């Protein structure tokens, strides 16, 4: 198995996970880890406090960038300028300008870049995508997405709610995943109507609720609610198609707080075969495990081995998502 010399920059929760998964994979030789907080580097081989030194001294083939949003563009662009391939956590920076900076670096590099939009690789999403792709339920007409969490003690002082570091609030932090899924199922959005607000977490500079109505280029509509006041965590995506509907509800996550991950589908039944119009037969798939992070890692590895573009988390997808988000924020 070909092995790629790899460094992990940013050893918070996601960085630690990527480090462990990369080590277990077998195709990545972990040559360094970097974090400004030395305590996070305990047990890591070749620890660095400065990311530039880490990259310059170890010359890895690939890096995982798992830092604050504000730091992502500079680190990603620098690595690409050294022809080092990059896996970067989402969001892809804080703004469209950040994405364009990374795009310019990628255009001038022989290396590859992938962003971590793992939700596309959750089992329920893959099943839904297959059902939509089969055409058995016709075309997608519209969609509704709700993704929300409750926050946590000390939420107000988290870096994620400091716009100068994060670039935005719950929409950029978590809602971006739901936005990516709506994009995945419906295609590019051409216009947005929105409202963002601080409803529950007073004192934070970024939004704790974002509401958006999105329209695609071919006139289809999606709605999105991203929330940090969802006191009972919720992941729910409903796709209405010409001949049925699909509901994704719940998600298997590390916190086990989003409920059982299910995908239910219903076929349009105006003849009321069940005896009740409006209550068609319900078919449910539920899942007992999630491999989305491992599948994502495998995709990154395959990308490196075959020297090809990623299928998910491309710079083009990242740019579109950030444009939509800035549209939602009204900053365009």
């Amino acid at each position, binding site marked *: 198995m070909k092995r790629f010399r790899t460094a992990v920059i940013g050893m918070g929760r996601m960085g630690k996970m990527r480090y462990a998964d990369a080590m277990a994979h077998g195709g990545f030789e972990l040559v360094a880890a970097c974090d400004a907080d030395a305590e996070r580097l305990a047990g890591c081989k070749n620890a660095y406090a400065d990311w530039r030194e880490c990259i310059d001294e170890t010359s890895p083939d690939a890096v995982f960038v798992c830092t604050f949003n504000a730091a992502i563009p500079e680190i990603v662009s620098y690595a690409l300028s050294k022809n080092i391939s990059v896996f970067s956590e989402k969001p892809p920076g804080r703004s469209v300008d950040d994405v364009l900076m990374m795009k310019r670096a990628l255009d001038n590099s022989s290396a590859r870049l992938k962003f971590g939009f793992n939700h596309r690789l959750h089992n329920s999403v893959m099943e839904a995508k297959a059902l939509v792709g089969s055409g058995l339920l016709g075309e997608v007409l519209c969609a509704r997405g709700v993704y929300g969490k409750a926050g946590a003690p000390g939420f107000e002082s988290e870096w994620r709610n400091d716009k100068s570091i994060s670039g935005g609030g719950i929409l950029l932090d978590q809602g971006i995943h739901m936005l990516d899924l709506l994009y995945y199922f419906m295609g590019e959005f051409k216009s947005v109507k929105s409202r963002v607000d601080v409803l529950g977490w007073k004192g934070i500079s970024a939004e704790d609720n974002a509401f958006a109505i999105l329209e695609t280029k071919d006139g289809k509509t999606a709605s999105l609610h991203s929330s940090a006041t969802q006191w009972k965590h919720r992941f729910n995506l409903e796709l209405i198609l010409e001949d049925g509907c699909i509901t994704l509800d719940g998600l298997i996550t590390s916190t086990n707080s989003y409920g059982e991950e299910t995908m239910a589908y219903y076929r349009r039944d105006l003849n009321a075969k069940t005896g009740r119009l409006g209550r068609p037969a*319900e*078919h449910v798939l539920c899942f007992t495990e999630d491999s989305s992070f491992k599948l994502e890692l495998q995709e990154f590895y395959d990308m490196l081995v075959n020297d090809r573009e990623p299928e998910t988390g491309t710079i083009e997808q990242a740019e579109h998502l950030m444009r939509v988000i800035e549209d939602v924020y009204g900053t365009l």
Partner: protein
Amino acid sequence: MLKSYDFFELSDVSSGIRDKSIFEEETRIIKELAEGFPENAEPEACPACGCAENAEFFRIWGRAYYRCNSCKTVFMNPDLESLIQLNSDKRLISFRKSERYQSDAETRRSLLWDDLIFWLKYRFYRYLGRCEGLSLTDFGSRFDALSERLIKSGICQNYETRETLIRKKSGTEPIAEADAILYFDHIQKYKNPAAKLEKLRNGLKDGGLLFLSLRTGTGFDVLTMKGSITNLLPYEHVTLLSIAGVNAVLERAGYEALEITTPGVMDVKYLMDNTDKIPDNQDFIKFMLESGDKTALSELQRFLQKNQLSSYAQIVARKRGAPN
């Protein structure tokens, strides 16, 4: 692993999947044949996992069913000659091919078959990336109308039935290696299910799919009713694999299990229709069936489906390299 279930309210399955008198006649024919077969020897090992520890679990028509202590598969140990005799019996074959038998199934199972074909198309697309123009071999097909529907569904470019009463074929060339094999309600007839499935590999493309459906030995009705059950017929139902048994058989035969689900809809209804036959020591189940309202009992069926406790299993597996 994927678990799936379909929610049906009890009233949706009130008509049942077969006419009572037809089933009684079929049972009578099989029982008359079975009474003429020699006594069965005690089994040496579980046909699913090979474990030698098994014990008699119940008897039907005086014929013993055993249960594996390891994987919980329930099985009998008939002699091969008797099985061949049953499956080639002219009276039974004629009855099953009769207009009455076939049309009753078509009428009662129409919605189920419609759902089955939709599900097949979906799973073909999920695992093969397409649901049209496939080559399918269908083993043990019993219903002419279902085969016709499969041919007309657009799924197959080539379709052939094998080991069956119903001879159906579409397409111009014989199928040497199929994209998928359908093996519905067939594997339970055999003493050595792993050997049967291993033999199928030659007729399946690399990475091709195997679709199985079967009665399980760990289903609600079998474990509750045991020897009182009326829809389990010796020599017709030889090996009732447990879910663990299914995994063992697939592993031995050289397949990767992609999904194992128990989407059966009849378990609760069957027990409700046969409360007088539920063994006396099943007080809780009797009480639950007598006192539960329609919603509660529908939820019970959903619980059984979701937790692989229904007596009907559907499996999708993929052919691996050389078998273990």
